[in-house]
């Protein structure tokens, strides 16, 4: 699946912007603040119904406007697909596929896949466990329909349970009320654990071989899924910790605490990894995400490379660019402050390329 055209309306600093992409490598350059990242994020948004960088929609609206609209025309072989996302300041966001609105926003997620590589991805290693869960959720929800359903189901139950625990202020409550809230969390929690476990069985080999390629086989990197549900199933966890949860005023066990341990030669990456190894690790996670999508969906995701020179050293970036030029990837969008650098690094015979330059106000120069 390739993105042929992208239209932005009131999105971030872009009042109106249209870009026509080629199926190969698309370089977008311009000074800081021109809105290059916003273009990649719009492509991410069209696939995931939310921003890669912002949890909320309001900051994405151009200053002074009360809505934004994203429109993407895609091609899958001979067929064209039009996706339009309209987000008003007041009211519900709507998503239309070929003119027909989805009943629920989440019904769209999984149709398109994107892999974003951005400077702040290093937070996967340095950040809290929520960063790593976000990566798992983003990957699985783009690949498996049922995952998102279970996640929403669980999240709704968890929010209600935590609100109840807070309202109780340490006092015990009607056990039937707990049961009423938990009866939805239990099957969903067990299912999420199962799906994540199966995911790592599939994903880890992709990751290990990607890391090996990036680091030339210098060390062995691996992933270890960590979950409360390894030892006990959801109902047992809730039953055992309910009294403690009342005192703590929050749910202390469940898949909302899941994490992934990153290791290098069996040691925790965070503690023992060098700067370079950590960067390679993050790149390998993204490469594995790419391969996982290809395997699950039978189509190449759109690769979004945001300011990769920002956090990666020149050598590694050049190696990445060579990888990108190799033709193993499908469509790619790259942003950089220097137009020439991308042009220089992306050159392979037969590779389709197109370059865009934005001025400081986000207007297209070429």
């Amino acid at each position, binding site marked *: 699946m390739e993105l042929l055209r992208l239209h932005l309306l009131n999105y971030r600093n872009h009042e109106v912007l249209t870009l026509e992409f080629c199926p190969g490598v698309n370089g977008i350059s311009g000074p800081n603040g021109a809105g290059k990242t916003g273009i990649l994020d719009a492509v991410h948004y069209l696939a995931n119904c939310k921003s890669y960088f912002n949890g909320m929609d309001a900051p994405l609206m151009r200053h002074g406007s009360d809505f934004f609209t994203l429109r993407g025309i895609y091609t899958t072989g001979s067929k064209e697909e039009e996706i339009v996302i309209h987000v008003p300041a007041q009211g519900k966001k709507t998503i239309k596929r070929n003119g027909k609105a989805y009943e629920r926003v989440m019904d769209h997620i999984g149709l398109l896949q994107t892999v974003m590589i951005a400077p702040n991805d290093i937070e996967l290693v340095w950040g809290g466990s929520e960063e790593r869960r976000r990566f798992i959720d983003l990957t699985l929800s783009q690949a498996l329909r049922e995952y998102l359903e279970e996640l929403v189901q669980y999240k709704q139950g968890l929010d*209600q349970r935590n609100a109840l625990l807070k309202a109780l202020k340490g006092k015990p409550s009607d056990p039937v009320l707990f049961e009423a809230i938990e009866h939805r969390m239990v099957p969903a929690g067990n299912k999420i654990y199962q799906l994540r476990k199966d995911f790592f069985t599939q994903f880890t080999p992709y990751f290990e071989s990607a890391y090996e390629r990036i680091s030339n086989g210098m060390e062995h990197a691996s992933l270890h899924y960590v979950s409360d549900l390894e030892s006990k199933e959801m109902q047992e966890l809730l039953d055992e910790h309910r009294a403690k949860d009342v005192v703590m005023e929050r749910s202390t066990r469940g898949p909302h605490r899941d994490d992934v341990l990153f290791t290098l030669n069996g040691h925790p990456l965070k503690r023992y990894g060098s700067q370079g190894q950590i960067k390679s690790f993050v790149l390998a996670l993204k490469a594995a995400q790419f391969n996982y999508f290809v395997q699950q969906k039978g189509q190449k995701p759109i690769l979004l490379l945001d300011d990769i020179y920002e956090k990666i050293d020149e050598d590694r970036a050049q190696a990445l660019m060579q990888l990108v030029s190799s033709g193993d990837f499908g469509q790619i969008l790259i942003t950089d402050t220097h137009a020439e650098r991308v042009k220089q690094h992306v050159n392979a015979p037969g590779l389709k390329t197109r370059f865009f330059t934005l001025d400081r106000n986000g207007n297209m120069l070429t």
Partner: protein
Amino acid sequence: MESSSRIVDDAIQALASFPGVGRRTALRMVVHLLRRPEPEVLQMAQALERLKKDLCLCRECGNVSDQELCPICMNPSRNRKELCVVADFSDQMAIEATSQFRGIYHILGGLIAPVDGIGPDELNIASLLHRVQKEHFEEVILAFNATAEGDTTMFYLARKLRDTGARITNISRGISVGAELEYADEATLGRSILNRTEYSF
């Protein structure tokens, strides 16, 4: 964005508190109101005022009413062995519009939603439990929106009513997940009332 009148700004702010109404829409509404004749606007204001001042809730079922008992509770031809429990009077209106139900109602005044600070004590649940204990209904129908809150409330009530001797049924099947009763079309809603099933845990 402010107007040159405090009175206008207050009216905008009041109207903008409606769900789905933003400041721009509220401003348009104020412009409209200013253009209408005074008696019409005062009548409108009075209609709103009476919602809080004169409206009663039926002492039997909790439905909105102009008197102590609502017309349905007073109607001798209704089947007093079948009780339909709904969240709000708008749901009761939707079910009534299908003409497929001849029993009586109980209006909870909302659904259990700890996230919004609504627990069983904030709803007409104690009065429902008391009513079912006392009245010996053959069947209690739980008719809630197919949302997380609807599901939680249904489970809660089904458990609480389990040993009362009444058959506990629900109508949610046939209405798609996330759907709201008052927006379901009459035929669909009517069919799901006729095809209600025993609640199973």
